[in-house]
Every structure is written in C-alpha cells, then in structure tokens.
C-alpha cells in the first residue's frame, strides 16, 4: 500500500517539474557518428563514379531494395573507373531497413550510409531514389545540420563517447 502512495507522490511531483522533452523540429539532437541514414554514392577525385555496377550491394541487401542495371564503359562515354558502370542505380527507401550491408558488400567503397534521416515524402514513388539523387550531396534539410554534427561534439555526444573511453578531436572553432 505504501508503494502505491509512493508512486502517486512521484507522479504528482512530476507535475511541477519542467518537462524534459526535446522539441524535435526546433531542436535536433545530433546523431551518433555511425548512425546509418540516407545512402550516398561517391565519386573518385577525378569525377569518375566509384560504382562499377557489380550488383554485390543488391545481392547483399536483405530487403531487396537496390536495383542495379550495369552497362559497359566506352572510350567516348566513360562514367566509372572500372570496366562497367551502373546505368541505373535505384534504392527504394520505403523498403530499405538501413542495415548497412550494401556498404559492407561494396568492394570499391562506392556506397555509404550517411546521416540524413528526414526522408519522409507524401508519395511512395518519391521514395525510390535514383542514381543522380544518390550521387548528390544530400540536401541539408534543417539548419542545425549546417554544422556537421560529427565535427561538433555536443555534450550528449561527449558523454556517450566518454563511456567508451574515446576522446574526440575537439572542434577548433568550438562552434555550437
């Protein structure tokens, strides 16, 4: 019986406490460094695509959301560094489970999972990301992401990293 009374008093105390909720669209909590979000395709420094259209990512994908159609590189149309390139490269974000297996499977580090997680659309078709969309730098949809959250160790991040004895290279500007 005393325990119930204790419970009631606990909830009653909370009534006068400031809520600890983080108001999401206004305040964005930085994600962890290895957070897996929206995919990104990469290019070599000379502008050629890293992807050679080998379809290993599609084979590794457990939810079968990647579609790759390769084509041969020709001397006058050289797209990638290898023999072939991905003529079509599509990821269906509605099916993707963000497991990161594609990233592991890729022999050329052509695909990585970024940190953007705000992917909602109002139609399902819009969730099929094409190659050109994946090659672009993801749009920074929110002002707080203008500063790359991984360069700026927030208090939260420091605390989490501290738990694993990792010291981050602190941002010289110390911006936040």
């Amino acid at each position: 019986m005393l325990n119930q009374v204790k419970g009631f008093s606990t909830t009653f105390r909370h009534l006068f406490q400031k809520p600890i909720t983080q108001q999401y669209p206004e305040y964005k909590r930085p994600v962890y460094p290895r957070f897996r979000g929206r995919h990104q395709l990469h290019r070599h420094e000379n502008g050629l695509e890293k992807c050679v259209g080998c379809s290993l990512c599609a084979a590794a994908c457990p939810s079968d959301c990647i579609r790759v159609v390769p084509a041969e590189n020709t001397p006058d149309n050289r797209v990638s560094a290898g023999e072939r390139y991905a003529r079509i490269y599509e990821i269906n974000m509605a099916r993707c489970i963000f497991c990161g297996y594609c990233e592991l499977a890729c022999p050329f580090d052509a695909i990585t999972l970024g940190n953007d997680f705000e992917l909602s659309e109002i139609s399902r078709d819009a969730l099929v990301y094409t190659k050109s969309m994946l090659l672009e730098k993801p749009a920074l949809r929110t002002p707080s992401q203008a500063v790359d959250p991984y360069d700026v160790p927030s208090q939260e991040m420091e605390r989490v990293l501290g738990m694993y004895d990792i010291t981050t290279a602190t941002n010289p500007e110390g911006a936040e």
Partner: protein
Amino acid sequence: MVDGVILTIIKSLVLASVLMGFFAYMTWVERKLIGRFQARYGPNRVGPYGLMQPIADLGKMLQKENMIPEMAHRKLYIAAPFIAMTCAIGAFGLMPFGDVATIPGTDWTIHLYIADTSVSLLVVAAIGSLGFYGLMIGGWASSSKYALLGGMRAIAQLVSYEVAFTLAVIGVIIQAGSLSFISIANAQEHLWYIIPQFLGFLVFFVAAVAESNRPPFDLTEADGEVVAGYHTEYGGMRYAMFAAAEFINAITLSALGAVLFLGGPSGPFLPGPIWMLLKIGAFLFVLIWIRATLPRVRFDQLMKIGWKVLLPVATLNLLLTAVAVVYL
C-alpha cells in the same frame, strides 16, 4: 418536467452541447496532464498550448473511411456506437447543477436540473446499464472473434463491478432516505457523505473507475495490448463515438460521485453549477492521476478485486450504515 416542455427541451440541448464541449476539452486536459505527470509536454502543436487539438482530432476522425466488415451484421454494426453515445449522454441528463436560480435582471426562475423524480438514481443506473449494450452489440455485430471476445470481456467486467457499485451507492441512499438527487444533495448540507460513508466512497470510487473503463481497469480497451477490445473493427467517427461514450461515462460517474459524496452543487460563495463543475473536475483529476500512475491489472486480478474485495467491503459498509441509521 419541472419547467414545461419547451424550456426542458432547451435545457436538454444546452446541457448536451455543454457536455460535448466539456468532454472535448477534457480530452485535451487529460493528455496535457498525463504529459506533465510523465515530465512531457503533451499536445502543444495545434494552436496555443495545443488548445485546438480536440478540433484537429475531430477533423481527423471525420476524414477517415467508414468501413464495414463484410460479414458484419450491418444495421447493428452501425447502431452500436449510437446506442453507447445516447446512453452516455442520457445518463448525464439527470445530474443536478443547483436547485432554483433567478436569471439576473429579471424575475424568471429556472430549475438547474432537467428532471428530478423520486427514482432519479435508479433511472441513471438504468440508462447506464443500457450503455452496456453498445459494447456487446458492437462486439457481436463486427463478426470478428477479437471483437466478440472483447465485448464479452467488457460485459463481464462491467456486470461484476455493477454489483459492488450499486451496493456502495445503497449506503448513501439509506442515509439520505431518498433516491432523488436534489434531496440527497440537500441532505448533505452540514456534512458531506464522504465522511460517514468513507468505506462506501472507496468502493464507489474503485468501482466507478472500473465501470468507466479507465486505467488501471481498462482491460476492455487495453491500448497497450496487441488487439483492442469490442471496437477492434471500428474506425473513424464510429470509433470516436465509442471513445466519447466511454469518456462521457467517466464524467457522469464523476458527477454522480460529486452528488452522492461531495454534496453536489452546494458550497459557499460560488453558485451551484460552478461548484458542481469543480467537484467533477476534482474527480476527473484523480482519475487522470491514477491513469498516469498505476499499471493495468490482469483479468483474474480484476475479477478478484471485484468479487472478493469490493463486494464484501460494500456489504460491510451497508451493514454498518443500516445499523447506524437504526440505532443512532
């Protein structure tokens, strides 16, 4: 009909609309309060402080598709939410908000209750028990085993707690010597029945929480569990009507508690309706507080509490009251 037919109809309409508005904003209050109890904000997006939330909810519910399961008994499936709603509003109609009031500036007097008979309490109990049929019909007519089992579970719970509930109320009736709300409220002018009838009040309160399907006795709905209760197959406005009926039942039971144990509309300084609203609000606050604090009971615990704890305690209370009334 104390005031003539037309005035009664006007009063009924006013009461019904006030009740609906009160209900709508109580949902906001409930969500806000539960948020604060759990160190959250609660709704704060629609309008200032989320005040437009009930209206947004209504808009959302109205837009939803009205689906009828193929095997359902169509007429009963459609009728069930209306039955639940009608009974919920109807039971509230007999609640007194004061005795006689004079309209300021004129010498017209009106009664601040729609009707008062010598069996008011029985009528409220009767209409309340008709509300069970909404649940049972809804569960049966959906032609789905989850809904049917949910309906039967709801009925089993309500019938079990109805017994203890009625026995607890009878203590008040014996002490007041009347079934009319006005006389019961008047009989508490010097001492609220919550003091002499404290045992009865406890039983009444627990049973009322169970009767109105509020946590921790919300097994019929059990929103944390996989399948909902009798309204599994309902969606949109029909579901909203069930939910509204449930909440209005809670308001009615709070009003009943206010009349039976807290002296109804009587109180110093403020007019009757304000006192009544304050007392109803106090009951609802405690209901919300309980919801934020206690975990849901299991079904066997529910039956055990109803039959093995509340019923004997209510009977004991009745016995003590009877002895006290006769020999004191």
